[in-house]
């Protein structure tokens, strides 16, 4: 049996509240900045009232894609964030789409359809549905309002918001005709998209894949949902506009963005003289059964699968800021890599907030940039939650950089789905 194909990262594309491109993310992290600002209008009326948004560079879209083929207006916010990140990635690789088709390349993205993507459809549904009189919960649909509701339904609105559109748009824009898939459903789906793309290359189904995630949480229902899951920082004091995972200050803040990676078979990358940023060391994904024993052990298995040999120099953990999850995260890292291991931590949530399925890939991007020395994230000293001493301490530590340095990024989600990816930095 021949050795499995080795998969390397040769490009990185990012959209974050700091702007478009890995350099903008690196600069923001290194300067210790954050992108948080008060949310306006209806969003601002909901907890947490603060978030990190990106001013989308609409006019510059033509730098990356042929706007005669597709325009930003044909995309939902998540698709825009993903396509712009991919466009920037391809531009950096001198692979700007030129109409050519590529049969051996594909695109996997993690995302999550949120209601603003169906704006008109949602308006129609709002007209249709109402709460039964005298009831405190539940809704019924009122057929009598159907004709009125239909006035607000739009074919285009429906199509652009279909769940497969993030990856489908990407394949259309890039001309990639290999496997394309959008993974939904959990905050780990971005990491799953990368992990499955690695598997696609290893199994020979494609030679190169663009993989990652893009997400924007800025919609009323989504903010309310995450609030009910205990995710947001609702501190009304001085700490209300910041995120400090693994500390005594609980809660995160919403942020939007996307991170995509150009993954390819090492042999192909070397043959074309590509700059190899890192090699994938492994991928692990596990499902946690609530209330089952050994929850941290299962998480640790995912981490070990990502880096089967040795301990990481850098970890990019979830950094959710929810105490129960943070403590499990900390325990899992100790179980996976040893109680004596003291990895340095790169956490994106203090800088750009929690962006659902894109958080993991953005963390991986930050770890990659840091491991390579392209970013030197400002170290953060926190008042550690006693159950999170390892990761809290890691926020203040610096790790090894340069060739051979290793990093593990992970998404440990409230839903129970967990995924981790490991990389070894190349010269």
């Amino acid at each position, binding site marked *: 049996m*021949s050795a499995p194909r080795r998969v390397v990262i040769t490009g990185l594309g990012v959209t974050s509240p700091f702007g478009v491109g890995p350099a903008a993310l690196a600069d923001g992290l290194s300067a210790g900045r954050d992108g948080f600002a008060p949310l306006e209008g209806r969003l601002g*009326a909901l907890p947490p009232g603060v978030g990190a948004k990106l001013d989308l560079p609409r006019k510059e879209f033509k730098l990356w894609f042929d706007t005669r083929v597709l325009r930003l207006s044909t995309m939902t916010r998540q698709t825009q964030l993903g396509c712009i990140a991919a466009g920037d990635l391809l531009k950096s690789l001198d692979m700007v789409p030129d109409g050519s088709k590529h049969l051996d390349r594909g695109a996997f993205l993690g995302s999550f359809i949120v209601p603003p993507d169906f704006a008109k459809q949602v308006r129609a549904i709002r007209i249709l549905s109402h709460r039964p009189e005298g009831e405190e919960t539940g809704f019924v649909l009122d057929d009598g309002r159907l004709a009125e509701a239909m006035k607000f339904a739009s074919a285009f609105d429906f199509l652009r918001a279909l769940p497969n559109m993030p990856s489908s748009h990407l*394949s259309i824009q890039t001309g990639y005709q290999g496997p394309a*898939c959008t993974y*939904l459903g959990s905050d780990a789906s971005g990491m799953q998209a990368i992990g499955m793309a690695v598997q696609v290359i*290893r199994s020979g189904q494609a030679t190169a894949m663009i993989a990652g995630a893009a997400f924007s949480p800025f919609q009323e229902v989504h903010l309310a949902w995450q609030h009910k899951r205990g995710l947001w920082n609702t501190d009304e004091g001085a700490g209300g506009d910041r995120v400090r995972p693994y500390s005594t200050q609980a809660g995160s803040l919403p942020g939007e963005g996307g991170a995509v990676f150009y993954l390819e078979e090492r042999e192909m990358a070397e043959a074309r003289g590509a700059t190899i940023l890192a090699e994938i060391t492994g991928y692990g994904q596990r499902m946690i059964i609530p209330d089952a024993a050994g929850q941290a052990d299962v998480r640790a298995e995912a981490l070990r699968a990502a880096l089967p040999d040795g301990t990481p120099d850098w970890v990019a953990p979830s950094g959710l800021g929810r105490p129960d999850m943070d403590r499990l995260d900390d325990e899992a890292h100790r179980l996976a890599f040893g109680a004596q291991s003291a990895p340095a931590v790169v956490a994106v949530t203090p800088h750009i907030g929690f962006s659902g399925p894109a958080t993991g890939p953005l963390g991986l991007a930050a770890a990659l940039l840091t491991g390579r020395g392209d970013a030197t994230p400002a170290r953060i000293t926190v008042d550690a939650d006693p159950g999170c001493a390892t990761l809290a301490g890691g926020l203040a530590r610096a790790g090894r950089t340069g060739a051979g340095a290793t990093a593990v990024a992970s998404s440990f989600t409230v839903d129970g789905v967990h995924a981790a990816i490991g990389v070894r930095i190349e010269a």
Partner: protein
Amino acid sequence: MVSGPRTAESQVPVVVTGLGLVTSAGAGVDSAWKVLSEGTSALSELTLFDPGPYGLEIAGESHSIERVPGQDRALQLLDLAADEVLGAAGWGDTQRGPETGVVLGTCQGAIESASAIHRSYASRPVPEPTDADRKAFAEYRPGFGTTRLAKRVGAEGPTSTVGMVCVSSSVALMHAVDLIRCGEARRVLAGGFEAFTQFVLTGFHCIGALASGPLRPFDQNRDGTVLAEGAVLMTLEREDDAIARGATILARVIGCGVAADAFHMTAPDPKGGGLERAVRQAFAEAGIGPADVDYISAHGTGTAFNDGMESVAFARIFKELADAGQMPPLTGVKSVFGHTLGAAGALDAAMAILAMRHGVLTPTVSHVAPLEGLEDWDFNPHQTRPVEGMDIVLSTNSAFGGNNSALLLQRAGV
């Protein structure tokens, strides 16, 4: 270079050992098979809501579940299918743990729950989130059904949700096969689910894709699709594991192919290039060719674009056979059950497996006059007929956005 088949060392044989489904024909494999094999239609008058504004005569509503306020219809369907498949496969405590995964495809997931809570946030001022809609909030994300099912079966391995519209569940099945072949899991519960909701129906109505009457795949008089609901689940596992535990093997998955058109967000490649590549990839993986296919289960939505694209692709793939008058028969089961979107690929595959096991070719009902140029193709328009040696089925699906899948299934015991 074309995207390729999986390498030989990753070719761990994967088999299907259980089926569970709910369709417009009712709950259970037997209900669906009875309607399909008798050549009748499961499509009926819509009772969930007034179909008048949509101009619908029939729809693929499942009358097996009652509308219960506060219960999401998609999750009800999924629960019923899970009840059946877990019993049929004989999965129990032995299958719990990290070597078991769950992969589901869906277009909209628990959309009823999601759409219901939107109204809360339409009012002004924006309300403070309360606990009143806790359940709807919990079910809001599209992957809720997947993780809930994983928790039910005790699956601690890979769990993911594929959102690829009409190829969602066929890609989910392939994803499951990949997970088993690459060693991420030894067994996976996979499939898809979709509920009939006004949310989706309104969207299809807007794009003008709904039929005024029956769904007529590959028929000159086709005028659109008929939406339906359903949930279809399969247990997939390593063949050696299945044999070791004495499981009934229903079929073997011998080839998978996926390819993107990279053409347009709404229209398929009119030349069917993506579908052809997906099929050829599946052939290459299985080590077989067009002449080995005994039956094609086509996507067959009854829309002008889809059926046209599929016809062109199949004409090219099977040209030599067609020229020799040996084109394998091709049918569309959506003519019986309607188009179940996120469950469609798994439903097509499930019916193909049953057809192989029974050694029959099921009909394309409502098909009267084939598309021009396809007069010699065998759409089996009338009734089920026995077929000798139906060993390999090609099941294909395509989706908005230009995604295509091809699954090759082999009859157990071959």
